[in-house]
């Protein structure tokens, strides 16, 4: 009897688990895909300079923790990641004047890494998709 109860309860919890996970809507699945792939892109292309926690490096390399800045500059993030960044910028009330090199990332990878960065290190902004990046790259200055 006890054995049956155990089997029954584990089956029940499994069912609940499956139900919950399938409740994840398409948007959530899309986000998860972009985010986890973006984590790998970040490690390979960004982490050396910006750090594992997006902390940057003293006055040399800006941190990626300024959510307000990321939000305001969301439209141009793709251009910055793709073509690099030059000139003075103010991040978290501190001025940075170095140069960020351009990358050879595909629009998909750019979208993945932006999704990762804008949803890590205390940031929370919606998914950036390949379509968003394609559109943004057309408007790069």
């Amino acid at each position: 009897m006890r054995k049956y109860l155990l089997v029954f309860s584990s089956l029940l919890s499994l069912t609940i688990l499956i139900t919950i996970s399938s409740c994840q809507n398409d948007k959530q699945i899309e986000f998860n895909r972009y985010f986890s792939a973006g984590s790998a892109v970040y490690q390979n292309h960004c982490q050396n300079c910006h750090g594992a926690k997006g902390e940057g490096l003293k006055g040399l390399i800006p941190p990626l923790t300024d959510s307000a800045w990321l939000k305001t500059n969301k439209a141009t993030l793709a251009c910055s990641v793709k073509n690099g960044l030059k000139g003075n910028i103010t991040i978290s009330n501190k001025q940075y004047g170095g140069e960020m090199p351009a990358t050879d990332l595909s629009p998909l990878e750019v979208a993945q890494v932006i999704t990762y960065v804008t949803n890590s290190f205390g940031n929370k902004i919606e998914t950036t998709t390949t379509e968003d990046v394609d559109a943004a790259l057309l408007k790069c200055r």
Partner: protein
Amino acid sequence: MRKLLYAGVLLALVSACKFNSTDNKVLPIFGNKQPVTRTVDGKQVTDTIYQTIPAFKFVNQYGDTITDKSLDGKIYVADFFFTTCPNICPVMHRNMLPVYNEFKSNPDFRILSHTIDPKYDTVPVLKRYADKMEVTGNTWWFLVGDKNATYNIGKSYLVSLQEKNAQGTYVHDGYFILIDKQKRIRGTYQGTDANEVDKMRADIKTLMAEPDQKAAK
């Protein structure tokens, strides 16, 4: 009986701790070795001559001339970088910061970061880099000098450096080299690996505690 057993276990634990203590630990000496036999008081004595860092002359971020004499009586760490390096240098110097912060109040400790891009990394550029890293005082020197001199000194630190390649990038490995007061190589650590740099910090303390380092001036 049980009490005796506990006592035994306790004793074993204590002695295990003792065994692991760093009291008499000595760091190895790296580089080429040469046995030299000489006669002292009619007896044959064999000494080992260790590889040492040769004389050098560079300029630091303040425009001061720094030579091997500036390192007399100092334990120091050397590395090679350039300020516009996009790949491993930021990691190396992120990892070097705790080393700098831990030992910056010790007058007998230095960090030497040689730029391998003297054309771009002039004294003002190095000063700006140091300022941005919030590095002050004379613990951490960023050195520039003749390119050949830099590449040659790199060889004596056993690091591999390469001039600009076809892609326009410099190639260098990210090693931190630990040098003792006799200018011998006592450790090499991958500067991009925070765990290895932690080990270096421990080794620096071990080295500072060695009798012949304490005695050397």
